[in-house]
């Protein structure tokens, strides 16, 4: 349907949700895990962890801070808790005819927690701030598709790229224009078909004027626009949120107060849930996963859901380690891994064997993209290895960061490879995550290494472009395939969603031939809760859906 405006607005759906909210119940979807309903009001405590950065949406990329940011900031679109489909939140409509020029109309009357109204300039200012390199925002790169992004970057080399001649040429994105108080336009450098889906990521939150006068104070006590506002952040102890009285959006919560209690060990949080000292934990410790012990400890008070996380094993770039250059060797190694047994024995079935490079929770997912290459078949694996002329190096290595629980599965994976291929395989621990990532980034790590990806926004594109496109920021294996890049560009230009998805799927299929990374498994999140709460749902991001939680 060329020429027709594509809208992400799900107008009918929002209207239903609005009506339902008026009746005091925000439930628009079906029940996933426990009886919905419950009363409005009261307070709950949930497990939290320590935010690594000040709480600014464009400077938060890790989950500890992200969980809080998500609850206190509204975005243009909101991801449905069940299906992860984008639904309009602050946006009245997002229109485009060419995937390059987008017009965004805002709903009127939505407010920040300081009482000021959310207007078009709040978005434009916030995105300019995020993109302007000297501000050093960790999520600044999400603005990359917007026209003029390059001029906001520092070009210098050495320790401080922003010094001297390297200074950024501009501090405003040319692709953002305020039309009136409730309308602004985005122009992207290239065609980006899934831009409306991306706009639900927290980096695209609007920021109130108060932020720009004192960003540092804001980071301590952010002024958001979501259903909950931040009352207090007691560093390393708790974060207290309370219901925002003037919230008029469709995704409000039932409870009046949410306290994130900061835990350093998931065991402590779990024990507190059993003893009813804590209402919800979004992480079940390994000790309780064994033989599904948590199902006995918390009968009918637990839930498990697949989330947009994939674990992969990436091969070092060919120029770093030529032993793995032949795709047949890579495929042979992938076929030598007995995913099912490892998941059962090491992860107590809290993972799902991967059959491709894209998580099943996103729109555009196609099953079995990896095909036989992700199916355990030791005979075929060995034959394939022989066809490639055998493994040239003395042993296969699989590196992991030893400060998290990766030792068991990497060793099991190596054993599986060793038995199937008859080539020695060693799991090598690197002291910690910082050192591990540095070695990968400096292209000093040889052999294979573990890589994980947690989606930023629910789109098939998010699992392909940032990881496998030539020169992409997380392309740790320096994968480069012109045909793959071409398909991604075509998909981004396509104005038809189904066509775009099909092009992305074709690109994904190329990965099976080249095998730049071995898909291992998709993640699942397990939660448990106390007998005081009801309506606990897990979102596709593995977080708690605060719009449905209520006290019994």
């Amino acid at each position, binding site marked *: 349907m060329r020429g027709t405006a594509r809208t992400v607005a799900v107008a009918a759906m929002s209207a239903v949700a609005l009506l339902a909210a008026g009746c005091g119940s925000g439930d628009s979807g079906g029940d996933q895990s426990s009886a919905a309903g419950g009363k409005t009001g009261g307070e709950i405590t949930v497990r939290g962890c320590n935010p690594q950065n000040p709480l600014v949406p464009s400077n938060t990329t890790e989950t500890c801070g992200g969980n809080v940011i998500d609850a206190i900031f509204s975005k243009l679109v909101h991801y449905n808790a069940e299906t992860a489909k984008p639904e309009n939140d602050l946006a009245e409509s997002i229109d485009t005819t060419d995937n390059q020029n987008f017009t965004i109309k805002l709903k009127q009357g939505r407010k920040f927690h300081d009482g000021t109204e959310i207007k078009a300039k709040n978005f434009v200012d916030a995105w300019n701030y995020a993109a302007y390199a000297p501000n050093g925002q960790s999520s600044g790169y999400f603005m990359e598709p917007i026209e003029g992004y390059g001029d906001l970057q520092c070009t210098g080399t050495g320790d*401080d790229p922003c010094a001297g001649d390297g200074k950024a040429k501009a501090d405003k994105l040319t692709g953002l224009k305020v039309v009136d108080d409730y309308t602004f336009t985005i122009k992207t450098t290239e065609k980006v078909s899934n831009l409306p889906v991306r706009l639900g990521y927290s980096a695209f939150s609007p920021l109130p004027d108060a932020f720009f006068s004192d960003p540092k104070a804001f980071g301590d006590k952010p002024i958001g626009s979501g259903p909950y506002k931040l009352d207090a952040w007691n*560093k390393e102890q708790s974060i207290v949120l309370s219901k925002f009285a003037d919230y008029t959006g469709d995704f409000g919560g039932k409870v009046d107060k949410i306290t994130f209690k900061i835990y350093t060990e998931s065991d402590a949080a779990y024990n507190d849930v059993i003893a009813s000292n804590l209402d919800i934990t979004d992480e079940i410790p390994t000790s309780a996963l064994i033989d599904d012990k948590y199902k006995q400890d918390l009968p009918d008070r637990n839930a498990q859901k697949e989330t947009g996380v994939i674990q992969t094993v990436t091969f070092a770039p060919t120029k770093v380690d030529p032993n793995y250059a032949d795709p047949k060797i890579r495929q042979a190694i992938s076929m030598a891994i007995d995913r099912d047994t490892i998941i059962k024995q090491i992860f107590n079935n809290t993972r799902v064997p991967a059959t491709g490079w894209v998580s099943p929770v996103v729109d555009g997912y196609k099953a079995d993209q990896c095909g036989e290459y992700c199916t355990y078949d030791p005979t075929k694996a060995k034959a394939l290895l022989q066809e490639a002329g055998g493994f040239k190096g003395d042993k296969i290595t699989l590196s992991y960061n030893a400060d998290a629980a990766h030792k068991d599965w990497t060793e099991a994976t190596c054993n599986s490879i060793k038995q199937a291929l008859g080539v020695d395989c060693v799991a090598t621990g690197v002291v910690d995550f*910082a050192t591990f990532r540095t070695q990968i980034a400096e292209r000093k790590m040889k052999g294979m290494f573990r890589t994980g990806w947690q989606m930023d926004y629910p789109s098939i594109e998010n699992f392909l472009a940032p990881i496998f496109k030539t020169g992409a920021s997380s392309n740790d294996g320096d994968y480069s395939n012109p045909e793959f890049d071409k398909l991604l560009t075509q998909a981004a230009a396509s104005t038809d969603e189904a066509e775009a998805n099909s092009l992305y799927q074709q690109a994904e299929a190329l990965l099976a031939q080249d095998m730049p990374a071995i898909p291992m498994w998709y993640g699942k999140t397990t939660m448990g809760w106390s007998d005081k709460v009801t309506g606990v749902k897990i979102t596709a991001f593995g977080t708690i859906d605060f719009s449905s939680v209520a006290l019994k």
Partner: protein
Amino acid sequence: MGTYIVRRILQMIPVILGATFLIFAMVFALPGDPVAGKCGERPCSAAYRAAFIEKYNLDDPLPIQYGKYVVNLAKGDLGTTASDTPVADQLKLRVPVTGKLALMAVAFEALVGILAGVLTGIRKGGFLDNLVLVSTLVLISIPIFVIGNVAQLYLGVKFGLFPVTVTSSNPTFYELLLPALVLGSLSVAYVARLMRTNLVENLRSDYVRTAISKGLTKRRAYGLHALRNSLIPVVTFIGFDFGALLGGAVVTEGIFNIPGVGGYIFRAIRVRDGASVVGSVTFLVIVYLVVNLLVDLLYGLLDPRISHD
């Protein structure tokens, strides 16, 4: 006595400088990128990295970084953590909690340990002696995380006698009781054994026999002379243990979710938060030095032959 204390305090200055320099050099030498873990499972952008490195002077050579740090330290500024809060604020929150916990643990180990040591030392070979010997052996051989987790599961979760975890930033005596007992359980065994051995040895010594033959009651000879002499190594151990508990209670703090100093240092090392590590370890060094001074002064009280004039 006064000059002795002044001299000891002056001696502390080079010790603190040396210790901070060593810690600083070690943190500096740690491999890995300080921003690598800060952006989740992906590399941070160049702009973020530049801003971060600029803020914490990470591109300066070691002597200059250290110089800047010491100048700030002299002004009482312990630096800023990587999550942008002053280290001093973090310590202000945590030290009272850890201090309370360590004091309770030390009080427990001193009271119970010394009492058990004295009772068994006086009646060597009796039933109580054997009972204490066996039970302390059991305590010494079980790792602290087993004791902690078992105590939490049964006394906290199953029977509900104690709170499962610490839930407030200013924990009550009751909330800290179980963690303190767990924390002190290992040391109580050492204190009891140390006390018993020393007492047994001193009871056999000439001055005790002389005192008794001079007509002193057993109670006075044991209590005044033998006990005081036997306490010297025990006091040394307890003083050292207090310092160790302040920074080394990582496991217990983790199990009971206590917002203490040990866990803070542990996490700071993991995320390469140099300012937090150096700041809090500097603080611990000072505590050690002060506790050592107190122990040395106590020697003088316990044994008049050790004089500090």
